C-alpha cells in the first residue's frame, strides 16, 4: 500500500519524498553514504569553472547510478545566465532536469521571481523539466504553471539558515491552490520542520545544508528521510484538528467512593 503513494513529477516517479543536495559536505565521500542512509532519489549539483590550479574532483562520480541528478543554475544573476547554464548542464549529459536559481542578493540569497519565471518559460519550451526555486507567491506560482514548470520550489527560509518554515502561511496557500507539486526548498534545518511541511501537504522537501553540515551527515540524512515519510504518512492518515479545551483520553466518569 505504501508503494502506491508515489510522487509523480515531470514524467518521473519517486517513492522517497526527500530530495537532497551535494553542497558543503566536509568530504565528498560522505555523499554516497548519506544517499544510502536516506534513500533520497534525487540530488542537486552545481556547475562551476574549473580551477586549473587545484585538482578537479568530479562530483558526479560520488553519486550512485539510480539517483537522479538535478543540476541547478546557481551563479546565475538573470534569466539569460540561467538559461545558458541549463543548456550547458544538459549538453554535459546530465539529462533535462534543471533547478532554476536566479539570485542577485548575496546576503539572503533570495531568488528573483520574475527572472525565474522568464527562464522557466524558455527552458520548458526547450524540453527541460523545470524546477523553479522561488519566493512563495501564489500569483507567480500560477504563472509558473502556465509557463510549463514541473513543480514549484518555494523557500521556507533563506538558504542555509536552518530557520525552518518561516514562510509557512504563504506555502500553505500554494499547497491549497496550485495544481503543480510543491517542493519546500531552502531553510529547513531540522527533521521536525520537514515533517511539518509534509503534514501541511507539501509533496516533497529538498534539504542540503542541514544534512551536509551536521556532525554525522549520513545519520542526519536518515533522520530527515524518516521525518519526511512520517509527515507524509500522517498527512494521509488524516490528523485531527486542534481543540481549544482538553479532551480526556481516560474516562472521566466517577471513580471510587
Amino acid at each position: 500500500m505504501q508503494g502506491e503513494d508515489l510522487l509523480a513529477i515531470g514524467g518521473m516517479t519517486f517513492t522517497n519524498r526527500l530530495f537532497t543536495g551535494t553542497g558543503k559536505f566536509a568530504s565528498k565521500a560522505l555523499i554516497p553514504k548519506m544517499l544510502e542512509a536516506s534513500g533520497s532519489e534525487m540530488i542537486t549539483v552545481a556547475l562551476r569553472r574549473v580551477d586549473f590550479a587545484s585538482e578537479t574532483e568530479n562530483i558526479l562520480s560520488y553519486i550512485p547510478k539510480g539517483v537522479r541528478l538535478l543540476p541547478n543554475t546557481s551563479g546565475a544573476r538573470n534569466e539569460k545566465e540561467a538559461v545558458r547554464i541549463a543548456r550547458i548542464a544538459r549538453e554535459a549529459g546530465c539529462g533535462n532536469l534543471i533547478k532554476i536559481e536566479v539570485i542577485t542578493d548575496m546576503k539572503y540569497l533570495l531568488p528573483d521571481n520574475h527572472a525565474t519565471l522568464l527562464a522557466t518559460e524558455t527552458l520548458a519550451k526547450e524540453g527541460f523539466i523545470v524546477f523553479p526555486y522561488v519566493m512563495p507567491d501564489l500569483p507567480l506560482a500560477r504563472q509558473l504553471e502556465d509557463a510549463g514548470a514541473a513543480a514549484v520550489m518555494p523557500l521556507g527560509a533563506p538558504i542555509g539558515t536552518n530557520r525552518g518554515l518561516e514562510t509557512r502561511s504563504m506555502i500553505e496557500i500554494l499547497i491549497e491552490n496550485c495544481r503543480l507539486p510543491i517542493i519546500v526548498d531552502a531553510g529547513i534545518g531540522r527533521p521536525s520542520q520537514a515533517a511539518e511541511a509534509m503534514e501541511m501537504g507539501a509533496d516533497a522537501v529538498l534539504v542540503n545544508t542541514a544534512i551536509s553540515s551536521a556532525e554525522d551527515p549520513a545519520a542526519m540524512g536518515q533522520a530527515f528521510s524518516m521525518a519526511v515519510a512520517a509527515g507524509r504518512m500522517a498527512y494521509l492518515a488524516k490528523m485531527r484538528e486542534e481543540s481549544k479545551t482538553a479532551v480526556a483520553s481516560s474516562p472521566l466518569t466517577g471513580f471510587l467512593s
Partner: protein
Amino acid sequence: MQITVNGTSETIDACTIAEFLAEKGLIGDGVVVEYNYQIVKREKWPIVRLQESDNLEVLSFVGGG
C-alpha cells in the same frame, strides 16, 4: 596565440581542445567545454583546433544545493 580561458587571457601554442585540457592535467571526466559560447561534445575535442581570440569555458560539476 592569445585566447580567453574561463574569463582570463592566456597565451598558448596552437593545439586542439583535447591537447589543451591534457596540458592542464584534465583527463576530462566530468568536464564540460563551451567553445565560443557553444557546447563542444567530448568526441569533438580532439578535432577542434583553438584559434586566436577564441573564448573557452571549461566547467565541471561541483557540490551545490
